[in-house]
């Protein structure tokens, strides 16, 4: 609400993840909280309130920093799961 009223970016105010998808080949994620699962066809990334689930093939984490990561591969879907539900 406050973010909307003040026209502030929500990812800053609410600590939400910022996800940029480049076609089906590259995903850039900011504000992540860690990796929950990682294999060749699936990556589950923890964020503040949910888990981002990326499905695809040949998935590779090219850049991995405490606040951001870049994933390469061929993506099929990006899903959001509430924390605590799998």
């Amino acid at each position: 609400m406050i973010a909307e009223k003040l026209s502030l970016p929500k990812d800053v105010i609410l600590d939400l993840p910022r996800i940029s998808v480049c076609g089906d080949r590259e995903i850039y994620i900011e504000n992540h909280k860690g990796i929950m699962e990682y294999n060749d066809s699936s990556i589950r990334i923890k964020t503040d309130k949910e888990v981002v689930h990326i499905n695809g093939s040949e998935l590779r984490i090219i850049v991995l920093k405490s606040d951001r990561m870049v994933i390469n591969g061929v993506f099929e879907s990006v899903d959001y799961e509430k924390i605590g539900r799998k």
Partner: protein
Amino acid sequence: MLKNTFKFPLGYVIIEVVGKNKERFLNMCLTHQFRIWEVQPQADGFVMKMASGDFLQIRPIVRKSGVSVKIISKHGTGRFIKKHRQRVAFPIAGLFVCVYFILVPRYIWCVEIDGARNADTDKIIEILKDKGVYIGASKKDIADLTEIKNAVVFGEERVNWAWLYIEGAKARLQIQEGDMPPAVKDKTTPTSIIASTDGFVRIAEVKRGERRVVTGDAVNKGDILVSGKVSVFREGDPEKYSYVNSDARIIADTIRTEEGIFTDKEILRIKTGNNKKRISIELFGKEYNPFGTGEDIFESYDIVTKNYDAALPIFGYLGFGIKLNTIEEINEYENTLTKNEVLSRAKEVLEERIMKNVGKEAEKTDEQLTYSESGGVYTVRLVMNFREDIGIKIPQEE
């Protein structure tokens, strides 16, 4: 590639992490701000790259997360030196490169002049040489660029502005040429005015000097129109003359003629699309062709050259470069021109020849083009009528 180049000097290890809590290991590495990248999943773990400095600190994390870590390979400058320490050629080559980078930019290996159209480049090169700018000269001896600029500007009159840029091992003189200023009119030397061509005088306005022609006179080339020797005595008195710098406006109707022989054949040069590339090496201003010039490949050809100078941001030109010469095959065809095309081209050529000799502000009043043709060879004659100033000054002997 670029990232790896920057990461290489500090060193990194490629490690394999195996265990149940491998994701936890990753997250703990992130928490500790360890530098990891290119994480690839394997059958029962990950393979990743980690900075060498950080790898030395992972023992507590490994113990806590319960994974096992194995080094697959080590990379970096230290590792590289250790691995190749038996090879003598490496340090020698490294030393040579260092010496090259230190020594070469200290000297001038190439002198270039940009912007010269009509200026005498040989003269400019001589001037630069006098000022210590030549191939092999030490850059530290080139002290005052303003002095060099002044020497060039005052030494070569066609140059209006110049500046010397030192770009690594290259000295590039940028010049700006200007139009020559008109010479200051000398109004003291005695002169006469003569006819530059045959003509029929229409206007004869004499400001100084003794008139020899009037409107309506016919004059031949070389006739005196206005004399600088002016008689200043009365009849019966001793002869006495005053010598003046003649000034007059003598406008006459003139006829100028030019003749030439032209054929109806021309050679067209058309690219076939076949070409060969040859690389030549430019080393300290001299060109070498290790692969040949390629000029013997085709019977007829054009050469297009592209230069690639080796340069670095800090060092500038490094004293060498390559030239890519593209030798393009040309087929020559003989083309037959129509009569109108021949005459049109002939007229352009003859007109240009005539206009070189015509006085300033001449007005064309008429022209006639006549020709005779025999077996494709045209003898063309152009006659042009002008109304022009025919007076030219010559010194008057006292």
